């Protein structure tokens, strides 16, 4: 009993020596944008556009950019302290990081829109997740692709020239439209203790115990709701 207690003490000591999993703060707009970017990169389908968050971050970036620009201007025309120069340098470095996050967030979404342009336009629930500019982009992209395909499809036999259907048929499904694969496997980080959760309605006896900081690899479809509830983040 004595040896076992000592072993457990050693394990606890090591665990406390290793410290917490992460020391990042989670409630700032920048960290929320970071999570939105990573979730977007990992999810097979396009997620709802973070309109308010992006608006706030863009406003903060614009305001900081003018501060840096005027600091630069006055530094080049007159004396500036080492402290001011350092502050400007740090401000600029952070700006570069935040601008990267914004660009990467937009680019990942545009990539998904391009891959599934027609499907995005025809599914109202999906179209609703796009920003106004993104909706325009989806429409223009789909038109450009249709024109491009038309140069080949126009040479197909009668009835086979559609971009949307294998065989043109009134009222038939559009079976040539790619859509995202919601069964793609993703990695996710559990953010809340949820206890035993039934993830697959087709297999209701199979539950998974979800505790904060668990990492699970699983089909996106099975954790889609948890992601919408902000109970997990993708990684």
């Amino acid at each position, binding site marked *: 009993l004595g040896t076992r207690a000592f072993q457990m003490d050693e394990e606890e000591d*090591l*665990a406390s*020596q*290793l*410290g*917490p*999993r*992460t*020391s*990042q*703060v989670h409630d*700032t707009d*920048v*960290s929320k944008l*970071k999570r939105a970017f*990573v979730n977007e*990169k*990992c999810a*097979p389908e396009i997620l709802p556009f973070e309109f308010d968050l992006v608006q706030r*971050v863009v406003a*903060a*970036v614009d305001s*900081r950019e003018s501060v840096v620009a005027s600091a630069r201007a006055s530094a080049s025309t007159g004396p500036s302290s*080492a*402290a001011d120069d*350092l*502050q400007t*340098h*740090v*401000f600029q*470095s952070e*700006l570069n*990081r*935040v601008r*990267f996050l914004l660009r990467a967030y937009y*680019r*990942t979404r*545009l*990539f998904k829109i391009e891959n599934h342009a027609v499907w995005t336009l025809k599914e109202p629930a999906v179209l609703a997740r796009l920003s106004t500019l993104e909706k325009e982009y989806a429409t223009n992209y789909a038109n450009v692709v249709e024109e491009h395909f038309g140069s080949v499809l126009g040479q197909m036999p009668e009835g086979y020239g559609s971009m949307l259907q294998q065989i043109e048929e009134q009222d038939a499904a559009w*079976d*040539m*439209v*790619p*859509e995202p*694969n919601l*069964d*793609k*496997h*993703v*990695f996710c980080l559990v953010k809340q203790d949820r206890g035993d959760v039934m993830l697959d309605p087709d*297999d209701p006896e199979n539950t*998974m115990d979800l505790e904060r*900081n*668990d*990492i*699970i*690899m699983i*089909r996106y479809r*099975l954790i889609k709701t948890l992601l919408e509830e902000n109970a997990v983040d993708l*990684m």
Partner: protein
Amino acid sequence: SIITWERYRDDRAVVSTQEVHFLAEDEHLDVVPNFSLQSLHLLGGTYGPFRPQMKTSVPMWLAMLLKKQGKCSVVPPRWLDVATLKQVIESERADDVFQGLPHHYIEIATDLCKHAREDLEDWNLTFDLVDTIRAVRHNKIQAGLRSLDENALKGVKLTNMSAMEVSVIRPFMSNALDNFLEGSITAE
């Protein structure tokens, strides 16, 4: 048949190693400045004030910026010392489970061993030990991957896997299970 674009490799669809490192750069480290500066009100938080010899906590990207300018020394995190790392190696070798290392342990160790060498007791040995930990864990991951069966389609728990490790196995593991799933659906 539906055209699938999933096999098309594009960096807009993959979290790259550089991006994982970028994400790690918001981890906090203690630094000891040799300069004075009022608080820095950054978009991501307020840091400082900075006073000579007064330890303060900053994100890693800022710690490295200050270090490269010769404006601070970095306080290595508690887990990044030779004795602790050796203990971790022993535990990793003894158990099937993964030790609870910080999520970005590889990125933090790499940056400190690259840019803050004189602030570590023995940066060469430290880097070797971290690499050994990475290798031992990688072998365990490989063994785990080999043992995957159709139960994996219900979800696999990877407790204490680190950010970089997830990024390294993601392409193989996701594709393998995606294909396995497709195969098992076709087989029905």
